[in-house]
């Protein structure tokens, strides 16, 4: 494509020099907004936060969770992939042997320091067992003590509940865990 140049128009003529026409035009707009919102808050976009929560996208990267097998045991095999790729180095894993031979290894310790976490989602991509996920839909964590941000294994252990807080009805919500997979091939999951 060839380079097309457009010179912007600097409007500053007699009509502007009178001040009043532009001010009346502006007043027309603001008064319009004022009365529309006075009589029914039609344009108001504010969300009354604690009572009313913003619907988030199904892809929202919120607080982590550790998924579980059908028998309820953690899927994580303590392979250290998420710990390796984490840019913020906020994941700490200690592996341990499990007496059950069908489970080779499991994380004895799985800590995530949510204060250090940058919510990049690389751990989810790196996990070969879809054991760690960020689809809890928890937007903000606010606690009065720093200690409470150290999420341990048992706090992270979670079963999947579909994220209800979405208003994008045209985007179907993932119903099962398989549908909620991060899909690196880029084929839409539905």
């Amino acid at each position, binding site marked *: *494509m060839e*380079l*097309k*140049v*457009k*010179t*912007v*128009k*600097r*409007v*500053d003529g007699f*009509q*502007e*020099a*009178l*001040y009043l*026409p*532009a*001010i009346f*035009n*502006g007043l027309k*707009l*603001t008064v319009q907004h004022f009365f529309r919102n006075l009589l029914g808050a039609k344009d108001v*976009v504010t969300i009354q936060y604690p009572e009313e929560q913003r619907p*988030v*996208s*199904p*892809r*929202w*990267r919120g607080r982590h969770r550790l998924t579980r097998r059908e028998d309820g045991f953690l899927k994580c095999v303590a*392979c250290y*992939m998420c710990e*390796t*790729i984490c*840019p913020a180095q906020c994941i700490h894993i200690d592996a341990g042997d499990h007496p059950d031979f069908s489970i080779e290894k499991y994380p004895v310790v799985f800590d995530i320091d949510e204060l250090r976490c*940058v*919510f*990049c*989602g*690389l751990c989810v*991509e*790196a996990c*070969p*067992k*879809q054991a760690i996920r*960020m689809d809890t839909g928890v937007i903000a964590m606010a606690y009065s003590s720093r200690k409470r941000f150290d999420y341990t294994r048992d706090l992270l252990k979670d079963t999947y509940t579909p994220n209800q807080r979405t208003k*994008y009805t*045209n*985007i*179907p919500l993932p119903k099962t865990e398989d549908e909620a*997979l*991060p*899909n*690196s*091939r*880029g*084929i*839409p999951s*539905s």
Partner: protein
Amino acid sequence: MEAVEKEIRNDADASIMPIEIGPAHPAMHGIVRFTTYIDGEEIIDMIPEIGYLHRGFEKESENSRWIQITPYTDRLNYVSPILCNIGYSMAVEKLFGIEAPRRAEYTRVIMGEISRITDHLTCVGAAAMEVGAFTFFLWFIKAREYLWELVEQVTGARLTTNWTRFGGNANDIPDGFLQELHTRLEQTKDILKECDALLTRNKIFIDRVKDVGVISKEDAMSFAFTGPMLRACGIPYDIRRSDSYSVYDDLDFEIPVGTVGDCFDRYLVRMEEMWQSISIIEQASDKMPAGPVILDDRRVSFPDKKEVYGNIEGLIDHFKMVMDGHQPPLGEVYMPTEGGNGEVGFYLVSDGSGTPVKCRVRPPCFNYVAAMPYICKGEYIADIVPIFGSVNMIGGELDR
């Protein structure tokens, strides 16, 4: 200047008064300090001090793997994070000598232009707010909110997007996204029209920005201005055209340029660029090809999850990719891309290992802030506000 210095040192009644604008001051967008010397209301001289937001981007990058830098680039320009994501990923792709698939490039164009609009909305809105047009600012922020929700739908976050990968994107646009995009763009257009009617022809506003902060073509080039700042001086330098990266060659748009190079021109150029970006997005969404959004190349991308879960080769590849990291070939590249307020260039040096030897980002607003004393001299103290607003300093990018 020596005369001024002498006067200040020796004469207690000198009419020149130093005044600290910043670091914490309502007109300073990030944290930056201008020690300003004023004579009455006129600025005699100004000494900028930056570095309050220095987080050691380059040092951290040299101690991270290539993929771990991507989240860091979100935080460079925090009003248009995706543009920095794209810039970094394209630089690494250049280092690898690969190109992302067409669909990935088209989605990058769409998301990048959305980011450019949000960048301009924030910049123009904040500049207008500081000359008193508060309503204008909040209406713009409303428009930005519409667009950020689009960003959130695709990337899963509003600001910390971390969306691009090497050779493609982390994920494709969701179903129904293009319709949603269309409605959001219509809303944004309405707001743009409304705000244009509110402010552009208001003489009070014109007085505030016209012939304020003028910089000539030659000086702008000498200061290495890029983006809207240079275009406002009348030079149609747009990297989307001059270096024609990505798929911008398939898309038709005009480059708005100004004539004088003052704050009014910068405002108008940015306003026009938003319209051009909207048109680019519309064209790109019409032309959107089907296909994958990331290269199937074991050097650069994680294997498909189905392979990772399903067979041992995929798992091994995945494991190697995570443990060793990306290993671009030996070499150095400089990849310029058009960021929100100018040329965002990544200069990368690789020695073939998993971490970069050098990851330098060329921040566009660095030059603008360096030029602030030059632009501001002789203006009134109240003019710092529109000038600094039109400069669009982003602390994260400036200090890195």
